[in-house]
């Protein structure tokens, strides 16, 4: 599915310093019944964000006016559990374009890359620095450069580089997806299929 190209992003962040955030928390299973990709942002972190009577939980970060921005910063092992791409859709649909963490679960990371959310893995120390800066000033800016593969805390100038493979980087920069690539090598795949043993 087409998504906006990603180049650089400068934004304040939304801190979520909880470890092992699983995709059941990002979007609970009962909201997976859609047959179209629409409106998932409304149910992002549904049960952490709303009471059973649908009133907002005041202490949850998405309900605190002082925090806003296009970058979600989560604790270690972010996105574990279910493979539901709906979790990445919910993150994107809510308005985030980037998730920062010190460690990502594999499938969630892949799903993010496929829908136009950039997963940025930083060191545990750098993650703490981002949280500390936001603690001081909730509007503190973080800048992410995909071409340079760097993340910078604007206020202090502290910078770290992050990994992304060259192919995925190119896709994100240009808004391409894997299917475009695979359709272009269709004959090669067909020839391969004829010789598989199973």
């Amino acid at each position, binding site marked *: 599915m087409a998504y906006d190209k990603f180049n650089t992003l400068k934004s304040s962040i939304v801190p979520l310093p*909880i470890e092992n955030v699983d995709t*059941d928390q990002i979007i609970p299973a009962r909201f997976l019944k859609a047959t179209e990709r629409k409106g998932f942002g409304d149910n992002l972190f549904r049960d952490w964000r709303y009471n059973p009577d649908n009133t907002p939980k005041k202490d949850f970060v998405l309900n605190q006016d002082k925090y806003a921005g296009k970058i979600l910063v989560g604790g270690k092992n972010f996105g574990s559990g279910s493979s539901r791409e709906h979790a990445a859709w919910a993150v994107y649909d809510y308005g985030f374009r980037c998730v920062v963490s010190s460690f990502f679960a594999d499938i969630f990371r892949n*799903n993010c890359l496929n829908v136009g959310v950039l997963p940025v893995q930083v060191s545990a120390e750098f993650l703490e620095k981002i949280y500390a800066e936001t603690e001081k000033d909730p509007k503190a800016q973080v800048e992410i450069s995909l071409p340079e593969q760097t993340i910078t805390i604007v206020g202090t100038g502290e910078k770290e580089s992050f990994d992304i493979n060259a192919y995925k980087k190119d896709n994100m920069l240009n808004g391409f997806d894997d299917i475009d690539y695979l359709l272009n090598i269709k004959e090669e795949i067909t020839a391969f299929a004829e010789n598989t*043993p199973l």
Partner: protein
Amino acid sequence: MKTLFDKVWDSHVVRKIENGPDVLFIDRHMVHEVTSPVAFLGLKSRNIGVKHPEKTFATADHNTPTINQHLPVKDPLSAKQLKALEENSNAHGISYWGLGHEKNGIVHVVGPEYGITQPGATIVCGDSHTSTHGAFGAIAFGIGTSEVEMVLATQCIMQPKPKSMRINVVGNLSKGVTPKDVALYIISQLTTSGATGYFVEYAGDVFKNMSMEGRMTVCNLSIEMGARGGMIAPDEKTLDYVKGREFTPTGTAWDKAKAYWDTLYTEENATFDKELTFKGEDIEPMITYGTNPGMGMGIGNDIPTAESLEGGVSTYKKSLQYMAFNEGDSMIGKPIDFVFLGSCTNGRIEDFRAFTEIIKGKQKAPNVTAWLVPGSHKVEAAIKEEGLLDILTAAGFELREPGCSACLAMNDDKVPTGKYAVSTSNRNFEGRQGPGSRTLLASPLVAAAAAVTGKVTDPRELL
């Protein structure tokens, strides 16, 4: 020197992209109603079809009710999703085993039952527990919806080759210790992210001596330690299981397949990026006390204190608070409200046999609501044929119809807020079995012991 994983992966690489992923050919694609509709919409908007409908299999499981399956599905959203899968399957010539179909069941239960799952195959599905099929020596892993669309369109996926890990469990298992306990033990040792980035091979006598059903349970839970998948080298047991099933090759096709399958083992001097060894004798019946599958321990132990952990204290305390447990609590004797036997983890015939072994001649505790959900119609039929249903009925239990059910509570099988469920499923995340539900993951034996005593009980006392 190649590993089992290398052999299967390398033989499926269509193309290697420099500084990028491999293009991997997929032999079998399993599809269910929840993660596929947007993928089919994607095909429509690109104006393309399904490249290999004969390698694609659709079943309805996540959303389906487990009672009165002959009646129309009440929840309009679930009904719409089921209808969408039926229409999409029909439009693209994909075999569809929907609600009421004799072959219907949980995708990871029916795949092996009908021989769709084969050694040395690459198998994907929009579901993280696709790792189940690794029990046959297949490379099987869960994918997102964009990737479902990718496989429908091209029969390929783009993935960097994961790192390799071998987990050996040597020796023997003690009485009352099941494959589920082996998996929960490994996850408790590795944590839920300990195998992230790796594909695991399970080796050692414990797995060699394990039934195919048990191997499926272990491989199923690979994702819960973060691994992309887990696999076990095929042996005689594997081939005996596969032979004669509907989609298993026959005649010369069998001979050709078998020649390939016979090559599927890790060579003696092959190396892994990581290798771990555990002793079967160290494993006890396990139970979880927290909100991720790594928070498990031997059933007789006390809940660890936050002080004993390396970091993550606030997350740990939040987790215990959700469960309403205290550091240092014993799990034994804690009252429970629900028991769930089922899911792609423990919804096979062997699991029902284990459960029945404990409850035979006893009665369901009056404070317990028990949901016994077979993984498929085939499992359901075996429960009846083997006389297990009579034993269950005499003990006050009812059998429901197949589906994912309370594992993820997309249907009506929801554990109410604040209630405790001893569950044979795979995830104890907050709200997983219904908003506010509290899940204790365990084996069918532990579930059975809880079902007849109404509290957490060591099953070895009842065996």
